[in-house]
């Protein structure tokens, strides 16, 4: 119960304030007046008038009011978007005019903190808001793509072009060093921020739990949200801002608010996009006879033994040029890749006012991938409605239904291995036809794959304000997702056995939140805000598969029986989930004259997956904000519109233990003496002493708005330390167990974030905005378990691109052979003065044209002892910039993002060069004229001789574990250029429209980079450019916004 003490304290504090309400009664006078806007002298209806903290009335439609108040009391006039004004009523006053000034500092006044709308000026956390305007006009299957480069410190890499899939998202650098998978398919455990959609938390990593090899449809829940329906996106970065969201907020929080009805007359709006996805630059290949000649030439000039020359005559496709089967020039890549035409439509209907409003949004999105047989379709119907019967009650309900349907071809998840392999086939082979088609091609093109994710989410929210300032609210939501995948592989595509695969899964989350908030102003200067709530989750999920092979023919897809010969296993998959979470949170905010703000908060999360011994994660945070511009000494600085200094600290303490790591796992092991046997699983030794992972973050922020909003400037610097990260230690075999989960690993991130916006022109007909943001993030490994002496190498025997963790360096470094160029001639190969033998590997001496590997240990033998630590797979600098010009009816928006200082392993290039390793294989020949390769003795080149096939397997000149493939992955990408035209209202009204706007936009237009590979962004989160990845297409779009004229 100790854990709850803090919660009770918060409650007690909250309660005690009721008793301190002060009241003074004196002589009353009646006073009336008008409220006007300062700039245009327009009247303001609906302005709230308070006496102390007591609401009196609001101005009528003419901006007039009448109140009866004690003499010498102070009235407070507040109106959203305007600076509140205080007026002291003195005896004898009858009629007053109150002038309110439009509030231009911090253009996004209201932000959402811990599910409550708050004034940004009175919250110390680091939060950035993006409005619908910033993300419109570009059709995309996943809204995350559009966040790229919009917020400093939010690193989005759109590293796959597969429709419906997600890229990688990180807030403020690396938070994990958990790497799974092997070879090029290694992936970093995703640490995506917590998404909250209309007050309902959502798990964005859901479909990514298995890395590239996604089980099931793999449609990200974020892909199911239509971009057109989004009102605003708020990104919370520091620990103070996220602490109230608990352990799931450790990686940042992104709050998405969908549109609400807001129009007296119902509005009907339509957005349509027609877009073309263009194939990116593909690998160039040598076609037809030229390929044959190139290969023959390679063999003739590089063969070292007579058998290799003889083999030329025995290799049909090289020798038998007249055979029709071998006499083709097929462009294999064009069979798999192609330009596609796509569309999206969205209709929304909304209406109402702040008493009652409603909205319905219907969307359709269809995108075909640039790889054939892949694509993503989405259908949506979202509705919400809000009702305030009186000032005390508020109800909100929403219904969100969507269907995402994805075709993955024969690929698994993010990879298109089959396409990558078959795209390398020799051009001499005939193109695929009904009778003649290699397995892989049939598989890629004929596999019938249908995937769908159906999601329905409902949310009901009620709020009751007992007395002014004290409100009770409750929210309940249910989110149900059903995933289905079915794949039928025809016999020709699967070694003459047709195959059926079926996946069915379901997931649900029941979520309830109850909150009590209390806001009170004491005197005129002291304001407190108390927010306490609890949350309860009940989550569950289960999925299973069946897989049958050797189906009788390509027509019958079932029913098929199960037996040991035909069945290929199945049953419930390991993503079974049944979990409950209960949380309690409280925060206390105090401000003095809106000048000094102090906020303290605390949250406890208990989850069922952490065992009963220590189920609670704790999140204390504290923040302080100083709105310095309100100080007297800045009074005369007219150019300073607003400004604040923020200092926050927060901790996120999350238990890392699972039931399994605390208690161990017990397996059923068959029978002994005809009795079942159950024994412990020896892979992991239970470790009940696991410490919770603790993320501590400090943030110092500085905001400044100058010249009435012409310049906005925000700077943040932070230090984030993640302690007690989980790390598997290997045990001595005399313990019987293999591994122990320990948490002796710490990493730290620190960085700087800057966001600047200029609005040099803000005329009525012509305005221009330029904004820039950037973030520098460095990560360091601080600690490893003692027995590793500060270095741990994660050996990868798949492609030997090892990862090294070394204390004091950046967390994820490569461990490679250092390539120092190419031996120009045989004479350049060093000779061991002791033995007289040349520098060698695997018993074979290096020659001219071979790569010059650094002999780290100086033994004149290249082996496993010659690896060195090098590179950093995580980007150092990320950011974006945009400019927006509106002139009369025209609009132009250009928006670019950049990433700098990261190491990419160009495995695609190594694959491409390696095609030449075996000229006898039925693989394409690639032109290498564009590369600086060694061709003849004496050449000073960058790349070794790829043609020397007979020594290839021993020397491995193109081995993937060398620094030759390490390239700088900096890039500047012009994401979007949008040109729009708004038709004259008077004209379109004649046709029954209220508004018509057309626009032309592009996405992923051009990337500037020194990188040799196709796209420096299209790489894995560990910086590996894999040739089986899905290319990111370039998109050209023609769009239309229409609003119907519904007023008459």
């Amino acid at each position, binding site marked *: *119960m100790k854990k709850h003490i803090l*919660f*009770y304290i918060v*409650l007690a504090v*909250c*309660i005690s304030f*009721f*008793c301190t309400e002060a009241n003074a009664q004196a002589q009353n006078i009646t006073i009336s007046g008008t409220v006007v806007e300062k700039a245009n002298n327009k009247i303001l209806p609906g302005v709230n008038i308070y006496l102390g903290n007591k609401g009196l009335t609001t101005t009528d439609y003419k901006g007039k009011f009448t109140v009866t108040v004690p003499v010498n009391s102070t009235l407070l006039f507040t109106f959203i978007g305007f600076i509140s004004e205080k007026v002291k009523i003195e005896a004898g006053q009858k009629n007053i005019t109150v002038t309110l000034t439009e509030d231009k500092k911090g253009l996004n006044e209201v932000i959402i903190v811990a599910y409550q709308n708050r004034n940004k000026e009175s919250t110390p956390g680091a939060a950035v808001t993006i409005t619908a305007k910033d993300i419109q006009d570009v059709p995309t299957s996943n809204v995350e793509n559009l966040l790229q480069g919009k917020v400093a410190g939010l690193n989005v890499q759109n590293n796959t072009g597969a429709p419906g899939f997600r890229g990688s998202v990180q807030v403020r650098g690396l938070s994990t060093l958990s790497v799974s998978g092997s070879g090029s398919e290694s992936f970093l455990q995703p640490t995506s921020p917590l998404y909250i959609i209309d007050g309902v938390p959502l798990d964005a990593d859901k479909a990514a739990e298995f890395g590239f090899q996604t089980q099931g449809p793999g449609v990200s829940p974020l892909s199911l949200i239509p971009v057109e329906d989004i009102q605003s996106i708020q990104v919370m970065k520091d620990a103070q801002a996220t602490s109230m969201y608990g352990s799931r907020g450790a990686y940042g929080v992104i709050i998405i608010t969908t549109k609400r009805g807001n129009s007296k007359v119902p509005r009907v709006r339509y957005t349509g996009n027609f877009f073309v996805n263009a194939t990116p630059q593909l690998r160039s290949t040598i076609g037809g006879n030229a390929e044959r000649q190139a290969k023959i030439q390679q063999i003739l000039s590089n063969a070292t033994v007579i058998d290799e020359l003889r083999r030329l005559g025995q290799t049909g496709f090289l020798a038998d040029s007249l055979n029709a089967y071998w006499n083709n020039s097929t462009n294999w890549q064009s069979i798999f890749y192609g330009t596609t035409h796509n569309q999206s439509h969205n209709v929304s209907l909304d209406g109402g006012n702040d008493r009652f409003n409603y909205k319905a949004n219907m969307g359709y999105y269809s995108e075909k991938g640039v790889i054939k047989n892949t694509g993503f379709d989405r259908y949506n119907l979202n509705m919400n409605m809000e009702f305030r019967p009186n000032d005390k009650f508020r109800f909100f309900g929403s219904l969100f239904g969507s269907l995402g349907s994805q075709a993955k071809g024969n690929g698994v998840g993010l990879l298109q291995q089959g396409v990558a392999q078959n795209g390398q086939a020799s051009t001499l082979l005939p193109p695929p036809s009904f009778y003649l088609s290699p397995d892989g091609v049939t598989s890629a093109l004929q596999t019938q794959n249908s995937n769908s994710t159906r999601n329905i989410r409902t949310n009901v929210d009620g709020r009751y304000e*007992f*007395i002014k300032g004290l409100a*009770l609210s409750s929210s309940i939501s249910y989110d149900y997702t059903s995933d289905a995948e079915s794949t039928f592989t025809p016999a020709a595509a699967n070694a003459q056995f047709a195959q059926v695969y079926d996946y069915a899964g379901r997931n649900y989350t029941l979520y309830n939140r*109850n909150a*009590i908030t209390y806001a009170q102003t004491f005197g005129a200067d002291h304001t407190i805000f108390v927010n306490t709530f*609890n949350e309860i989750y009940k989550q569950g999920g289960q999925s299973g598969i069946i897989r049958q092979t050797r189906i009788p023919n390509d027509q019958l897809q079932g029913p098929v029986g199960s037996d040991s010969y035909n069945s290929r296993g199945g049953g*419930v998959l*390991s993503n*079974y989930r*049944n979990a*409950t*979470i*209960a949380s*309690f949170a409280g925060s206390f905010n105090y401000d003095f004259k809106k000048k000094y703000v102090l906020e303290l908060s605390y949250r406890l999360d*208990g989850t*069922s*997956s952490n*065992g*009963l011994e220590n*189920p609670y994660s704790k999140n204390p945070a504290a923040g302080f904000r100083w709105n310095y511009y309100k100080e007297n000494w800045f009074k005369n600085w007219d150019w300073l519109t607003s400004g604040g200094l923020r200092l926050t600290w927060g901790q996120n303490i999350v238990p890392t233990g699972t*039931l*399994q790591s*605390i*208690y*161990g*796992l*017990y*397996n059923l*092991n068959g*029978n*002994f*003496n*005809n*009795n079942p*046997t*159950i*024994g*412990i699983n*020896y892979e992991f*030794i*239970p*470790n009940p002493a696991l410490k919770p992972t603790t993320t501590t973050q400090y943030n110092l922020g500085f905001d400044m708005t100058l010249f009435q909003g012409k310049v906005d400037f925000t700077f943040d610097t932070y230090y984030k330390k993640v302690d007690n990260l989980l790390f598997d230690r*290997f*045990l*001595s*075999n*005399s*313990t*019987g*167990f293999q591994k*122990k989960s320990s948490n002796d690993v710490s990493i730290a991130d620190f960085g700087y974030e800057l966001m600047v916006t200029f609005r040099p022109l803000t005329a009525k007909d012509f305005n221009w905005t330029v904004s820039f943001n950037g973030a520098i993030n460095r990560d360091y490994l601080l600690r490893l378990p003692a*027995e590793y002496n500060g270095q741990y190498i994660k050996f990868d025997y798949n492609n030997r691109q090892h990862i090294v963790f070394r204390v004091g360096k950046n967390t994820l470094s490569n461990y490679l052979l250092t390539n120092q160029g190419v031996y120009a001639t045989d004479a350049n190969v060093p000779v061991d003065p002791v033995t007289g033998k040349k520098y060698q590997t695997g018993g074979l001496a290096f020659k001219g044209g071979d790569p010059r590997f650094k002999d780290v240990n100086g033994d004149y033998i290249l082996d496993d002892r010659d690896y060195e630590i090098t590179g950093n797979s995580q980007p150092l600098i990320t950011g974006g910039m945009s400019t927006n010009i509106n002139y009369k009816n025209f609009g132009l928006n250009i928006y670019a993002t950049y990433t700098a200082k990261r190491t990419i392993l160009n495995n695609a290039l190594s694959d491409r060069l390696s095609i030449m390793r075996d000229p006898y294989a039925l693989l394409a020949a690639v032109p290498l004229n564009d590369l600086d390769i060694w061709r003849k003795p004496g050449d000073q080149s960058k790349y070794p001789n790829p043609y020397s096939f007979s020594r290839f397997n021993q020397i491995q000149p193109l081995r993937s574990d060398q620094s030759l493939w390490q390239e700088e992955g900096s890039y500047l990408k012009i994401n979007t250029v949008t040109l729009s035209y708004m038709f004259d209202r008077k004209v379109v009204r004649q046709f029954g429209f209220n508004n018509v706007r057309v626009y032309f936009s592009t996405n992923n237009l051009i990337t500037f980079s020194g990188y040799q590979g196709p796209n420096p962004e299209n790489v894995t989160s560990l910086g590996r450019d894999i040739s089986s990845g899905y290319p990111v297409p370039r998109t050209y779009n023609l769009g239309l916004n229409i609003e119907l004229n519904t007023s008459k």
Partner: protein
Amino acid sequence: MKKSVIYILAAAASLCLPSCKKFLNVQPIDKLTGNNFYQSKDDVVANIYDMSRAFFGKINETHFIGATGEYRSGEVLYEPQSDNGPARAYVEVLGRNDLIRLLGGNQPWDFYNFYRITDWTGYYQVIQSANILISKLETGVPGVTEAEKKQFEGEAAFIRNLAYFYMVRLYGDVPYYTDAFHSTALPRENMVSVFNKCIADLKKYKDGLPWTYSDPALKGVRASRGSVIALIMNMNMWNAGFDKANANKYYQETADYGQELIKSNAYRLLPITEWATVIKGRSDESLFEFFRSINYGDQNLNVAPIGDMFLHYPYKRPEYTHRISFAYFRAEYMQKLYSGTSDKRATIWFNSDIYADNGKFMMLKFAQNSFATGEEDANPDNTFMIFRYAGEILLCAEALAELGQDDQAIALLNKVRARAEASLYTGGGGQDLKDFIFLERSRELMGEGHHYFDLVRTRRIMNGEWSYNVLTLDKFNRGAWTWPISSNALANNPFMSLNMYWVNGGN
């Protein structure tokens, strides 16, 4: 108004928090984690059987009994004419104590997986499992009575000490621990000290175990007080050989426990004509065994039983690959065991080619209970006997003889001989008696994996009279009698060292 607010808040808070613990306790249905295991007596029993299963796994993964306990002193030769003859040559490689070659790889006998003997992980898994079970029993398992708790603790203690017993005999010094979830690396501990700790541990739990089980299916299969006594006796005798200074103490303890075992009358020697019952398992003679039965669908590795080497058609099929045995005991050795005097074992446990010195030789001791039909290639369905009453009677006799109590020793010796319907020992005491008891153990326990360890602990391995592969005192002291330890043991353990005799090339 204010009051009602306070009441609402208080009510909300008091309702939410206490129920929280219950709300958060979710037991997964897709796996057994520690929080939903050890919840009943059945869980404990399943866990005890799992330890036997795991221990048997070490014996079943290779031709364990022969390789470790029988062939290393050179009494066995292989029959080159047998099926896959070159692969059977390993018995002679073992007989020369050339373990380096045996384990070298690229040998025709690689499929025997002898390298697995060098890996002790499996024993430590059994030890961890037993340690965990004991600690769980100490904290209490629902539905387990006090008596049952003591019995289960005794069974767990037995199996972990059996693991130490096996490891010491194979590797010499080994790391020793009894705490649950032990995860730190330990150095190897002197084997005499390990056994002394084991003996103390066994004594602590011994009396919690029943002498025997009324359920015939559990006899010999689940550890009983007799199993524990047998293990204590064996450990004492081993220490007597290596801790000469305290030898008498160990002999005395062995003799005392042996007499306690005999006095209990819980076990008996079955008539030699009922040998098939003994070797099938679960008999009154069994002190501990790993019971196997085709009726339960138990699958043994084809090469695991010792009988695999010494049987041929019709006990093994198909005939065309099993016309002769793979190996045989030297005629000279067999004559030494069975010369002159009458002994039913010579006729019941062997075929008429007992002195043939070739593949016609058959050890019928393991030919019983053969259910193979047609051309099925299967071994007879026998149990894997670990401790047998007869062996412990002889061990007690040996201890008594060492203590000079010759009359009692002879009485016990003759008990075993009488069961074999062999002529009773009438010779004198002293060294003659000791040698005779040694030979009697060789006769009685042949093929049960005790012979080589008897040679080692009595140091007869250094005497050409008793061994075809004599170790010099120097080699013996450097650990030539041990097995190499897999270099895996060095990983993640800075305190670990391997057996230097084998690291230095095995000579």
